[in-house]
């Protein structure tokens, strides 16, 4: 039976998640140099358009149509059979199409996250091909594993409320692979200052706003789970910001705005898989640990291993996806969500184990899959712009535009 309140709620949530892609574009766009800001924004716009089409044509079917444990079937190609009747496997009180379009927004933002890793140096054509292949061969299967009917991780009992593994681990690990594959940007050792931090802060604000739709909307109905997800999301974002800020304050004597929004996003990403399963106390712990972990990833690990994960996709999203899945394994409680599971603190260590298996499986799959895709794209059209193009900037060389005028 369709419930119009739930329907309206998920539609609004879909709109909010859609807004996260422009939000992400600004979050990332502010961090690059002026000569490359449009390339970031353009990649986000392109993903918004192209993945929508991919999803309608075959992506949704591959991810959610029943078939086997590894991949969805082809019966929903072109959204054939995806109508107004609810699909009780996914959401019994809203039209199937509403579930489809809500999930589309997740399929869009996930490859969007990756672009931060290869910022300022990837060819536009290579980016486009990479994104299409990645969405099809990494995202769709992983979404099927975790959320699809018959997906093996779902069957095994792994829980990922709103995409900690599907969205954040998959993109974060793939980001690391692309960063290593493409190599460093020229001059990166000398430091590349963000060209417009207010843009990044605007993006962070829009991301937080949209994240309410991302996490609360994942309840797919207006109920206590949605309420809980809304609240723990807000709290984890806040605590992530606080933790990063104080890590900086202690270590560098000053907190920074960029550090604070980094911690916020880390907190929001970490709570994502847990939002429907953990209580407020857990969300405080999750937020704090997210800020601390992402701080160390960026300042210590990245510096030590000297990879150029340009906008810290691995350090923030990858690690926080992993952390969030573990935290779900630790803090999940049937008292919060009877359809969920009890975690380690509720005495059920085996659930944590399942979460670890999910993390490992998705990590390994994303790692290998992304590498193979990069190899193919590189062989076909080459992935990296020439040094001259890198000097001149991607905006001019890939898109023939300038973000800002200088003289008039």
């Amino acid at each position: 039976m369709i419930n119009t309140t739930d329907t309206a709620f998920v539609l609004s949530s879909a709109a909010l998640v859609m807004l996260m892609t422009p939000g992400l574009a600004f979050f990332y766009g502010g961090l690059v140099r002026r000569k490359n800001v449009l390339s970031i924004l353009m990649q986000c716009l392109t993903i918004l358009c192209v993945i929508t089409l991919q999803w309608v044509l075959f992506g949704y079917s591959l991810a959610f149509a029943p078939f086997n444990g590894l991949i969805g079937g082809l019966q929903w190609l072109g959204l054939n059979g995806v109508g107004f009747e609810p699909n009780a496997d996914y959401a019994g009180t809203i039209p199937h199409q509403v579930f489809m379009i809500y999930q589309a927004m997740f399929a869009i933002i996930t490859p969007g996250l990756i672009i931060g890793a290869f910022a300022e140096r990837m060819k536009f054509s290579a980016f486009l091909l990479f994104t299409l292949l990645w969405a099809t061969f990494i995202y769709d299967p992983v979404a099927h594993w975790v959320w699809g009917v018959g997906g093996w991780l779902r069957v095994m009992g792994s829980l990922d409320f709103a995409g900690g593994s599907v969205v954040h681990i998959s993109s974060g690990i793939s980001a690391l692979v692309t960063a290593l594959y493409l190599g460093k940007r020229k001059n990166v050792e000398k430091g590349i200052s963000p060209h417009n931090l207010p843009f990044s802060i605007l993006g962070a604000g829009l991301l937080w706003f949209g994240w309410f739709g991302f996490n609360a909307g994942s309840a797919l109905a207006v109920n206590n789970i949605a309420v809980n997800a809304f609240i723990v999301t807000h709290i984890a974002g806040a605590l992530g910001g606080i933790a990063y800020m104080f890590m900086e304050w202690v270590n560098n004597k000053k907190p920074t705005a960029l550090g604070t929004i980094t911690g916020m996003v880390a907190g929001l990403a970490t709570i994502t898989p847990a939002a429907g399963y953990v209580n407020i106390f857990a969300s405080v712990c999750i937020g704090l640990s997210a800020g601390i972990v992402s701080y160390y990833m960026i300042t210590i690990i990245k510096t030590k291993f000297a990879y150029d994960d340009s906008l810290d996709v691995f350090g923030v999203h990858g690690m926080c996806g992993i952390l969030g899945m573990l935290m779900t394994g630790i803090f999940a409680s049937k008292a919060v969500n009877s359809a969920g599971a009890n975690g380690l603190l509720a005495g059920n260590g085996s659930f944590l184990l399942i979460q670890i298996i999910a993390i490992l499986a998705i990590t390994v799959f994303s790692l290998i899959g992304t590498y193979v895709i990069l190899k193919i794209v590189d062989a076909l059209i080459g992935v990296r712009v020439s040094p001259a193009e890198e000097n001149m900037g991607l905006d001019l060389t890939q898109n023939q535009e300038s973000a800002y005028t200088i003289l008039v």
Partner: protein
Amino acid sequence: MKMIVAVIQPDALEDVLDSLYKEKINLVTVSEVMGHGRQKGITEVYRGVKEAGNLLRKIRLDIAVNNSYVEKAIEAILGSAKTGNVGDGKIFVLDLEQCIRIRTGEEGSNAIG
């Protein structure tokens, strides 16, 4: 005729302009520059990673004057831009061979003011 180029602290701009106007030196061209000097830049920190920010924001003034105004202009700038702290800036004086007012085509000293 001389071309006086002064690099000053951004904060001193209003005062320097006022002092120049008082000396009837009303025509100036101002631009934004970054300077590296004795004044230490502040190390910026992005996501906890430090970056030596060795350039500081400064303001540059270009003032073309007749010879009789050179001293006045320098005095005016010294009087208003000096705080005594490192970073106050410099004044450079170059020889100016010709000056033409575009609107009228006037040349030389007449075109300066």
